[in-house]
């Protein structure tokens, strides 16, 4: 095994030859949102750290998060989190061997796509309502 040298073998056709489909796009989005959430986690930990450090530092972080650009990032963070969570729940269904027929796949994919958007907007509306 270890004495094998890399050989330039022909590769099988990759993503670009397939017609884009929603289920495929959602699979890609699951990965992209996952990577984005790894960055978002830093924002959350930063907020916890600020709460542990000092009033001035906490206020600075809150001010940055409260800026429209900060809010935009946090809105994206919220959507990525909900989208990825709903995608993960879809994967649990597939993990136990269910929901593989095309109609079910399509239905689940649509529900998680729409659910992610609706819940994100609803959560932010709730946030603004609480703050008002």
């Amino acid at each position, binding site marked *: 095994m270890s004495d094998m040298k890399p050989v330039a073998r022909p590769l099988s056709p990759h993503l670009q030859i397939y017609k884009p489909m929603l289920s495929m796009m959602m699979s890609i989005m699951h990965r992209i949102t996952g*990577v984005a959430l790894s960055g978002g986690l830093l924002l959350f930990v930063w907020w916890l750290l600020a709460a*542990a450090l000092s009033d001035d530092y906490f206020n600075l972080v809150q001010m940055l998060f409260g800026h429209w650009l900060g809010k935009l990032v946090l809105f994206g963070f919220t959507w990525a989190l909900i989208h990825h969570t709903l995608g993960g729940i879809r994967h649990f269904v597939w993990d136990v061997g269910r929901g593989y027929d095309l109609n079910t796949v399509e239905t689940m994919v649509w529900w998680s796509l729409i659910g992610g958007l609706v819940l994100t907007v609803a959560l932010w509306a709730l946030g603004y309502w609480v703050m008002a």
Partner: protein
Amino acid sequence: MKTGTDMKTPLKRVRGLGASGSGTEHFWHQRVSAIFLVPLGLYMVWFAMAHLGATRAEVAASLSHPLHAVLMALGVGLAIWHSMLGLQVVIEDYVHGPVAKLAALLLNQAYAALLAGLALYALVKMSFGV
């Protein structure tokens, strides 16, 4: 399968788990952390929502409560672990050179360790109020 000078038995070979070096435990850890992250993630979102516009003292006071401290530690810790496992798969899929791949994997683990260290420090500090 290769024959000839290789004296290894199939059992010996499978013990090393071949070229990947590991079996299904990565997948399993990803799913187990995912299952527990559903309720813990909900808790963390709720916590953030419940502290919209709160002062530092209010957030710190909440997190000094044992229930919040433990739930938050579990949530953040599990999220960091889940994220590390996920980024590992992404790196293994897209970073190919052995040196670049090793460097990226180490960086991924360092990032996770840094996040864990910062979160741990913050939660311990708020719990013990120093």
